[in-house]
């Protein structure tokens, strides 16, 4: 996973509530089995007309927002389907941080596995940030100092559980960490669990 330390960028504002993962990454492209290069399908059916032409006025295709590493959105961003392609498409496009009042829970978990920071802030602050973003303000997100700044002014602190912050800063592979730190604990739990609920352990059939 790509580590997340600090970024500075314009921010694109999509004020709509409940932007779902079907909108972020349409289902038909789930037949692709890659996880790289999916940025071209990001918001596909909003970014392109039925004829495949760029849809006029779509925010992520307008400079300077076409270079934005930050997306600011309404509540419920990433709700719906669990498809991780929504995250892969965002990161491949260049988005490293999404700011919204709250997120679809599975989306937020997926984001964490891919170095995409999801920052939940109160709705009124998000809308204020969105307004600043539309004016072209430069945002900076610094995970090391835990600060979010707009045009050089600190506007919020980045409140993230320690485990998530460390994983993002280091770009750790979570499986490695779990196996290394907790392999023994898992084995011990499993042995006890097998005694207590043996019916959950079906012997592999021949």
């Amino acid at each position, binding site marked *: 996973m790509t580590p997340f330390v600090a970024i500075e960028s314009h921010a694109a504002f999509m*004020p*709509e*509530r*409940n932007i*779902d993962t*079907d*909108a972020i990454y*349409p*289902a*038909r492209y*789930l*037949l*692709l*089995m*890659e*996880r790289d290069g999916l940025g071209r399908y990001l918001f596909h*059916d909003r970014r392109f007309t*039925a004829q495949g032409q760029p849809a006029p006025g779509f925010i992520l295709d307008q400079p300077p927002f076409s270079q934005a590493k930050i997306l600011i959105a*309404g*509540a*419920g961003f990433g*709700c*719906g*389907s*669990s*498809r*991780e392609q929504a995250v892969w498409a965002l990161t491949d496009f260049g988005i490293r941080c999404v700011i919204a009042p*709250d997120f*679809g*829970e*599975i989306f937020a*978990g*997926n984001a964490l*596995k*891919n170095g995409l920071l999801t920052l939940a802030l109160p709705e009124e602050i998000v809308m204020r940030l969105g307004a600043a973003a539309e004016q072209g303000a430069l945002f900076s997100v610094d995970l090391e100092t835990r600060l979010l700044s707009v045009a050089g002014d600190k506007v919020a602190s980045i409140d993230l*559980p*320690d*485990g*998530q912050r460390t994983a993002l800063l280091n770009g750790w*592979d*979570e*499986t*490695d960490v*779990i*196996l290394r730190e*907790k392999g023994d*604990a*898992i084995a011990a*739990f*499993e042995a006890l669990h097998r005694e*207590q*609920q*043996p*019916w*959950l*352990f*079906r*012997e*592999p*059939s021949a």
Partner: protein
Amino acid sequence: MGRTLYDKLWSSHVICDYDDGSSLLYVDGHLLHEVSTPQSFVALEQKNRTPHRADSSLAVPDHAVPTVDRHLPIADPMARAQTQRLVENVARHKIPFIPLHDRRQGIVHVIGPEQGFTLPGMTLACGDSHTSTHGAFGALAFGIGASECGIVMATQAIRQQRARTMRVNIVGQPHPFITAKDIALALIARIGANGAAGHAVEYAGPAISAMSMAERMTLCNMSIEAGARVGLVAPDETTFTYVEGRPMAPKGAMFDRAVTYWRTLPSDPDAVFDSEITLDAGEVEPFVTWGTSPEDALPIGARAPDPETESVLARRQRQIRALAYMGLHPGMPLESIGIDVVFIGSCTNSRLEDLRAAASVVAGRHVAEGVKAIVVPGSGLVREQAEQEGIAAVFREAGFEWREPGCSMCVGMNGDTLAPGQRSASTSNRNFEGRQGVGGRTHLMSPVMAAAAAVTGRLTDVRKLMGSNA
């Protein structure tokens, strides 16, 4: 203080707690399908890992598979390749598998319970958001992403933040033709698509006790549409009766021992929830959605909203966009909306009980002219049973297409899609823009309501059609 069902499920699976409030949970069961796992297997194998316990898994193709012409190779080369990839992946790792041509094949959330894979008291993960369905058994079941599928395979564990708890008390008894789907839509309309975000929802109360497992599954299935990753119903006699004798369920003395444990799971009488809601099932009417979020649900007798009367700007803008996408006029009666396609299926409403109910409406009637109506059973076993009971014949005689099992038009990945501008009456769970095909317009409803729409060609109050007084 007493503990909730969620508390008990959670604490009986904690391997360890982390300093930041998250915990590492042991995962008892992992369901896999072809669409969400190709990248998970790549991640697993890149690091030369193997599944920690292959016997904890069950895999089945369902999302991308065709519902017609099963005797032929899958026509879409990408869907064919993806389905084949699952076959190879599970073979390499010795993961229990139900192949496409097996009579047990079907939607992952239908076959898990059907095979007795889903059991009370377990933790169950699947790369699919509607994994909440399995919570109907009193299992802690949640959707995960592709990376997490790889983590679960390699470690049998997942790191999670504990959810807050919400109890939804369903009191009263629903009137005839009012189903679990209507109750779910009424709830989401009330609390919003984000209303249960961060919560594990437990459905409780007399109306829940009276429900069949199929109805409970419908309700838990829709929890994710209210923003909750987890939906739960406490296991009871209905649950045990359903589970007993299923192929993968414990047998004999082991079953009795399991039941003894499962009886300890329901929330204690003095358990405290972070929030509580009460909904009177006796007041729920048949619900349909008019817009592009499951929260855009209204009783069938209502009219499409008028944005002019909406004072909150953000809501007004969303209504305008949704009405335009759906091709509706502000204030038009929902019953005046004509439909092109009827889809009876999906992990929300494709079980035998759903098909029986829809067939009882369809019997002796015919699909309206110009309407294409399809029934996609949730599994091969549901399909077989429906054929034996004569339900399939009722649908066929009425002009429905009777398909092979799969996700089909719920997600439109297998070629079963709406054309741009086409309008469906659908028993699935999501009416998002483009969900059933680019430009497709989806109205969510119950199987009996979809059946009524099929025979009249428009959104219809099934109670009127059936001459039952509301």
